[in-house]
């Protein structure tokens, strides 16, 4: 009796799951690129009102806490730090004044949740990958990423980092970062890396000698080595693999077209370059090594 009921329930649940599976397979087609191809009537301030989360204001999301040099003092609305400055520059291009920009807190894990988004775009060092682009829409690049190694001063990796030597260390990284993917795909270490929920936890593990090194984007790595961690040093950065950060929008949000236009203008008129120089400039002069 009991066995029969359990079996019946299992069949019913399995049937439900199967139904979900088939119904979703058609919606799961990859979009292929970061930008939407759907045409938007006009990218004027009045033309994009119907695309906004809240008409009249541009709602920008990021995580909490956020770190230098991307933001300063964990205060996105102060306009300081590269990502805060880029967000305001995009807002200006779209015709919003500084007071018309609202910042909201969105944890990394819920940026890609299904359903309506409570923001217009999210800016939080999110790297574009084709797989991620199936769940959200990415803007074009606002920052080309290179990964760097952070280790404790005097530890073996600071001097011994040939391709073969790099494989012998125990790495740690933040969950879901492309740094972790880089470790596994390009360094291919012998020991399984440790994966932490936050970069701060990975940093504490480094300080406690639980990992030999961590890999993160160069500006973050430089900031950690120079200011956050007492005894750490940026060992070197890896050559680019074409990775870039993009703004994250709800899947299929046509605002992406206008955001991309804004980014293109900011790139052509040199604004992105000067913001990069202003906020990240001191962070970007390091030797490159090959994994």
């Amino acid at each position: 009796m009991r066995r029969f009921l359990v079996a019946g329930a299992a069949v019913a649940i399995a049937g439900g799951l199967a139904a979900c599976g088939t119904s979703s397979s058609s919606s799961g087609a990859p979009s292929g690129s970061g930008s939407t191809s759907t045409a938007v009537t006009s990218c004027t301030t009045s033309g994009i009102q119907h695309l906004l989360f809240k008409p009249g204001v541009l709602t920008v999301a990021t995580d909490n806490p956020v770190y230098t040099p991307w933001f300063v003092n964990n205060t996105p609305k102060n306009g300081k730090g590269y990502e805060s400055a880029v967000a305001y520059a995009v807002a200006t291009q779209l015709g919003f004044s500084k007071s018309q920009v609202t910042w909201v807190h969105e944890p990394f894990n819920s940026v890609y949740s299904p359903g309506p988004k409570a923001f217009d775009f999210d800016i939080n060092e999110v790297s574009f990958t084709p797989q991620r682009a199936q769940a959200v829409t990415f803007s074009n690049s606002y920052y080309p990423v290179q990964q760097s190694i952070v280790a404790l001063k005097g530890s073996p990796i600071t001097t011994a980092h040939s391709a073969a030597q790099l494989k012998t260390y125990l790495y740690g990284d933040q969950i879901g970062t492309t740094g972790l993917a880089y470790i596994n795909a390009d360094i291919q270490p012998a020991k399984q890396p440790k994966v932490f929920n936050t970069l701060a936890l990975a940093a504490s593990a480094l300080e406690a000698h639980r990992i030999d090194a961590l890999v993160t984007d160069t500006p973050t790595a430089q900031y950690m080595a120079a200011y956050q961690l007492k005894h750490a040093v940026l060992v070197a950065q890896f050559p680019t693999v074409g990775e870039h950060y993009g703004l994250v929008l709800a899947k299929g949000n046509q605002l992406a077209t206008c955001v991309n236009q804004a980014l293109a203008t900011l790139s052509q008129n040199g604004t992105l370059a000067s913001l990069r120089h202003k906020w990240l400039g001191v962070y970007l002069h390091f030797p490159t090594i090959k994994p």
Partner: protein
Amino acid sequence: MFAGGGARGTVISTASTVVVLAIFVLIFVLAPGARTVAHAFFYPHDMWQSFVGDPRKGYYSVGAAIWLNIRMFLAAEVLILPIALVIALIRQSTHPALFPIRVIATIYVDFFRGVPLLLVVLALGLGVPGLYLPVISHQPDAVYGVAALVISYSAYVSEVYRAGLNSVHRSQVAAARSLGLTQRTALRYVILPQAVRNIIPPLLNDFIALQKDTSLVGVLGVIEANQAANIYASTVFNYSSFTVAAILFLILTIPLARFTDRLIERDRRRRLAGVAT
């Protein structure tokens, strides 16, 4: 056990089960966002990818990672059972000389039942290696995780033991002593067997919770099932890996839950039989 007796009961319970399940499935399928949610949580391709894993793409096998949860659970359980019993016996002791130890045991139980397990895991996993002690500071993270589980759950389980010890009537001790048994042998052969039988269901209940709480060790960077699922989700932007982890945890815990039910039922029948005859 689920249904009332008889063929009619079977029909009614089957029908109501089907109706209830159908309602749930309908709500899920007819919801406006059903397709997106189904894609985000139940996409077979992502479920399979996260189950097998592919480190080159930045994520690990959830299926392989659950093995670490199982090992941590087994190691913790083996240690918790005797440690909790010792704590319970200390708290039940009456000898005046043991007073300071009783106080320590009481403080221990109060403290570790009150502090969130996650904080204990973090404190041990990040703090102990920082002490630079020989051997103790150089253990794998899973060891600190298991230590935190043992410390926290021993406090809970000692209270379960204590309830069990208290559930044995005082006349049992008196009878045992009057037969010439010492305090110790009375405890060993009369009190404990009865106490333990009473607390098997709540003990198993705690162990089901323990199986799930092994996932907290993931904060130390250990790749257990929950962490592997989280890595997949944040790498690929699809939550189907969480569904895989949930299914794996269910496969672990449901047999134990059913086993608990069966024990409770057997125990009840045995007691009722004792009353009837």
